[in-house]
């Protein structure tokens, strides 16, 4: 019997005939879509670039994508080629992958891209099946979005990643109102790490060593964290966005769910990516271009407020410490005397003298004592063996009082964080030092010092990066760098009978120092120490704050006699607001060098600032210094501009 190929051929032909139309149709429809996308020049459109997080290259022409996960860019060269990425995306939309709990169809996984491309190309569902994307829609329905609010927890000097504050978004649901906002969801972008070593955390954060990811959580967790645990006031900026824009924010967040970006504290940080997110949803906004080098949360908030009509309303949410402070001030001395003993469990909550107070007064004392105890617990200062039991008895006692304390709420600060001075500052001035006249140029890229106006900032928190001064002296000295300070942090927190925080300062950099032969080399040093501070009088908005520090200095330079010098000594001073615009700081500082060098150096001076307006201020610094048994005077008048 001879072998007949016919049935085999016939079968193959049949298969080809059956399949050919679908292949032809898919590929021709894809070709058609690609052709149309090129005709409409979609790969060049800003909307596409924002959705894909493309940013222009620094030197070479072209763009690169900021997302670092390979799964975000579908084309092999998608990270740098917007066109091939767009075409690969269109091809992926033909996938017939069914959605499961762990896997999504590309139309759902990249639902913001699908939505935008659909609006441009009007996909024909009969030629490219539309996926239901049930998981996304369930998620969207749970969030039930009606609005988006930008949340700004104020600066937190004690946390290196929150020194400048932080920003996150809140998705407000349709059935919520101002009283039930806790139930909204928050969308947060953060470095994803379990690192518990603060130094490693700071270093990795600077060099992009952590993956940054978006996450979602109930807003109440964030409120508890900021208001109650870290005692940071929170500002809420309700944005005026259309329902379509809000949906686009959510679609894009969904798309970014499994994606990570390298997290950098300074530029590609929480605040930067929230702006990227808003831009992806509203490509007509220009929010990110101002933040190529660094993105300080308060600056990004300012940028959002600057957009006409974008911010609808602002809400201030004071921290637990702020509320306790405020309510203690409202109390009579008699009421206040109960708070410490009650919170520390020294007197029972059923104390007879307390029971003798009128009911509203008793309610106030018990509430404030409970809140104060929680403040002590959150800051690790609770000295009671079982604070939970003390807290519980205070609450039980409070529940027996049906009267209400009816205290007025904490007044909203006059200036919001976006209304403070600009975070960059440049100063030009002239003066005289040790008999030589000079002109000075002073620059400070970021962010705030103790003499700057406090409005919109956390009082007593100074954070400066890369502060520098250059001077041109008359006579022999000529032009020289006066000082360069890569980092300076000062945290002055006033104490009273209820609050006992430590103040501290640290700075590192190069400064002029007189050495034994009379010259003044630029010497590297590290300097800092702990301190204590008080306000006079003891109120939240007191005009005077006095401080004492115990400071140490370590200097290292080959021009020092033994290549180094180690000293220690006190400093004392006061920050006094003479008027709303005029602040003065008298101070005295002494450092006794005992190792590497023996010298008693001291400085006594008076610094003054007069605010002209939000962007301009005058400074007058006068001092007398002594180093290596030589003394001299300095006076400097300068004009500072904030931007």
């Amino acid at each position, binding site marked *: 019997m001879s072998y007949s190929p016919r049935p085999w051929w016939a079968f193959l032909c049949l298969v080809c005939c059956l399949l050919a139309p679908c292949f032809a149709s898919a590929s021709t429809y894809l070709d058609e879509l690609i052709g149309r996308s090129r005709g409409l020049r979609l790969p060049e459109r800003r909307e596409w670039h924002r959705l894909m997080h493309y940013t222009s290259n620094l030197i070479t022409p072209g763009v690169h994508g900021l997302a670092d996960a390979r799964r975000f860019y579908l084309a092999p060269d998608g990270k740098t080629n917007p066109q091939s990425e767009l075409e690969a995306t269109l091809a992926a939309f033909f996938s017939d992958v069914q959605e499961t*709990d762990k896997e999504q169809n590309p139309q759902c*996984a990249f639902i913001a891209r699908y939505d935008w491309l659909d609006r441009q190309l009007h996909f024909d569902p009969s030629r490219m099946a539309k996926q239901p994307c049930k*998981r996304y829609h*369930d*998620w969207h329905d*749970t*969030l039930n979005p009606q609005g988006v609010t930008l949340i700004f927890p104020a600066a*937190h000097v*004690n*946390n290196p*990643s*929150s020194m400048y504050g*932080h920003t996150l978004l809140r998705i407000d649901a349709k*059935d*919520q109102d101002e*009283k*039930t*906002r*806790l139930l909204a*969801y928050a969308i947060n972008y*953060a*470095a*994803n*790490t*379990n*690192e*518990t070593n*603060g130094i490693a*955390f700071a270093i990795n954060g600077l060099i992009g060593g*952590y993956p940054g*990811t978006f*996450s*979602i*959580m*109930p807003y*109440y*967790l964030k409120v*508890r*964290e900021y208001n109650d*645990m*870290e005692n940071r006031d929170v500002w809420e900026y309700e944005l005026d966005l259309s329902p379509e824009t809000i949906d686009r924010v959510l679609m894009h967040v*969904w798309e*970014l*769910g*499994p994606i990570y970006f390298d997290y950098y504290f300074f530029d590609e940080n929480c605040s930067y990516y929230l702006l990227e997110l808003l831009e992806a949803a509203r490509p007509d906004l220009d929010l990110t271009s101002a933040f190529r080098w660094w993105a300080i949360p308060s600056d990004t908030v300012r940028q959002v407020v600057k957009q006409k009509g974008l911010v609808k309303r602002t809400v201030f949410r004071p921290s637990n410490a702020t509320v306790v402070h405020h309510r203690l001030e409202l109390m009579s001395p008699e009421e206040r005397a109960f708070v410490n003993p009650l919170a520390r469990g020294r007197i029972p909550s059923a104390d007879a003298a307390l029971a003798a107070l009128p009911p509203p007064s008793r309610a106030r004392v018990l*509430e404030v004592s*409970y*809140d104060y105890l929680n403040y002590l617990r959150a800051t*690790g*200062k609770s000295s009671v063996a079982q604070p*939970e*039991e003390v*807290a*519980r008895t205070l*609450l*039980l006692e*409070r*529940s027996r009082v*049906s009267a*209400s304390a009816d205290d007025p709420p904490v007044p909203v600060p006059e200036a919001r964080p976006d209304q403070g001075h600009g975070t960059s500052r440049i100063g030009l001035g002239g003066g005289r030092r040790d008999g030589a006249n000079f002109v000075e140029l002073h620059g400070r890229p970021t962010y705030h010092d103790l003499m700057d106006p406090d409005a919109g900032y956390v009082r007593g928190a100074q954070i400066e990066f890369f502060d520098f001064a250059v001077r041109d002296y008359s006579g022999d000295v000529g032009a020289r760098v006066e000082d360069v300070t890569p980092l300076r942090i000062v945290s002055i927190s006033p104490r009273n009978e209820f609050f006992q925080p430590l103040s501290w300062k640290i700075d590192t950099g190069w400064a002029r120092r007189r050495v034994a032969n009379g010259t003044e080399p630029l010497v590297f040093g590290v300097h800092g120490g702990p301190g204590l501070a008080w306000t006079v009088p003891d109120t939240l908005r007191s005009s005077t704050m006095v401080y004492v520090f115990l400071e140490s200095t370590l200097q290292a330079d080959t021009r020092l006699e033994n290549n180094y010098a180690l000293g220690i000594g006190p400093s004392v001073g006061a920050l006094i607001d003479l008027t709303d615009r005029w602040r003065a700081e008298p101070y005295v500082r002494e450092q006794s060098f005992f190792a590497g060098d023996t010298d008693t150096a001291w400085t006594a001076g008076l610094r003054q600032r007069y605010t002209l307006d939000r962007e301009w201020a005058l400074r007058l610094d006068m001092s007398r210094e002594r180093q290596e048994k030589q003394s001299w005077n300095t006076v400097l008048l300068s004009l500072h501009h904030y931007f």
Partner: protein
Amino acid sequence: MRKILIAVVLSAVPALALAQQNNIGTCGWGAKLFDGQSGMAPQVLAVTTNGTSGNQTFGITTGTSGCTQDGVIKSTWKTAMFIDGNKDRLARDMSIGNGETLDSLAHLIGVREEDRATFGRIMQANVSLIFPSGSTTGDSVVALKQVLRSDRELAQYAVSI
């Protein structure tokens, strides 16, 4: 008060079943947020602020995980998770009979506007039952349900917990 105590005792058996059903242990946040959060050191070490812990409790497209689906809380868990995340504040508001956290709880379990005053009063009267000494979130959820059931006007809301 006595009536409620009796009700709690009488319903001890179903309460046990409810306690198991509401065992928050596997997915609550209370422990994670409040344990070891004391003093300046943990603040400096950024335990939670910008360094979210590596687990994906809050992941957006991670599918089903514990009590969340793609990062949002499944509806059967939302009351328990809310109580777990707001214990100190909720107990405080209950002892006063009003406040933001109590309003949010009322909203979560669907208490209508006209019943809010009663709700506040009953919560204030029963704060010691809802947050007994050394209680877990599961205990509080069970007790809250019992307290609501024992009140004629509020009994209708017990089902939504």
